[in-house]
């Protein structure tokens, strides 16, 4: 059931998108497949690195944030994909056992002249850990159809 179309989204609205606890096993599993650097694979190597412990790949943190954004918002919306992200900052390491919470705020909305029936929404994403510290932020535009528009 689509709850949010382009017209329903306005700058200043924000959404709390739920939480996700990152286990040591998952950090290692993701790293083995996508980012096999020692500090993402091994506790000792993690402690010896700038990261200070077994830390999730930044792409893993981004992927978990994507999951929460999809389940907590996009899948109830008319979203038709995103052209990209900008100004992504990995502010703090995500360590094994951390519980992440994602907040999304709408920062702008405009109709697309090039594509009647579609609008572009800019979303600011913020991922925090269980202490409230911000671990990652980025800006993410995405396309949404207007109410009643067939794709």
């Amino acid at each position, binding site marked *: 059931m689509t709850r949010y179309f382009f017209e329903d989204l306005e700058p200043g609205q924000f959404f709390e998108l739920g939480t996700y606890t990152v286990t040591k096993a998952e950090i290692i599993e993701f790293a083995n497949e996508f980012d096999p650097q020692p500090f993402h694979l091994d506790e000792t190597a993690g402690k010896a690195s700038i990261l200070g412990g077994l830390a999730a790949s930044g792409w893993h943190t981004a992927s978990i944030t*994507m999951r929460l954004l999809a389940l907590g918002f996009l899948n109830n919306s008319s979203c038709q994909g*995103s052209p990209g*992200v900008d100004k992504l900052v990995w502010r703090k390491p995500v360590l094994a056992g951390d519980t992440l919470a994602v907040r999304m705020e709408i920062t702008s909305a405009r109709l697309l002249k090039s594509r009647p029936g579609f609008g572009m929404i800019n979303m600011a994403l913020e991922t925090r850990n269980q202490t409230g510290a911000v671990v990652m932020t980025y800006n993410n535009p995405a396309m949404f159809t207007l109410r009643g528009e067939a794709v």
Partner: protein
Amino acid sequence: MTQFFEDICIGDVLDIGVHTFSPEEIIRYAEKFDPQPYHLSEEAAQQTHFGRLCASGWHTASIYMRLLVLKNQEIERAARQRGAPIALIGPSPGLEELKWRLPVFAGDTISYKRCVSGKTESRSRPDWGIVHGENHGTNQNGETVFSFKSNVFVQRSPR
């Protein structure tokens, strides 16, 4: 990159590697991390403006990282055999202007490249510098599907 910060030159190009995205792995990644209809099944994707099953943009990005790390490990092994010193590579503080320019459809083969575009000395970590890169992924038709600007810490020469 096994070179130290001082030895890396603006304009250096690295062929990172090539990856073909199978429908099975697109769906497997999407079920875990990006469960939107166009990433989950061919049938559901046909109901969207993509029209066909395509990879999550974060999947395209994560494969870039996999290939880059494997390429660096290969270069590192070769350097060790020559007895050459090896610079440590640190984590990345972040990225800019990541663009998913075209969908990566099931069956597409993407070639990834990085070009060094700049270097910054780290004020907070005098033993490290930051190397900036322009990264591109190109499909089998020669179309750029993916690009972003990267930043990564690289150890400075101890000499």
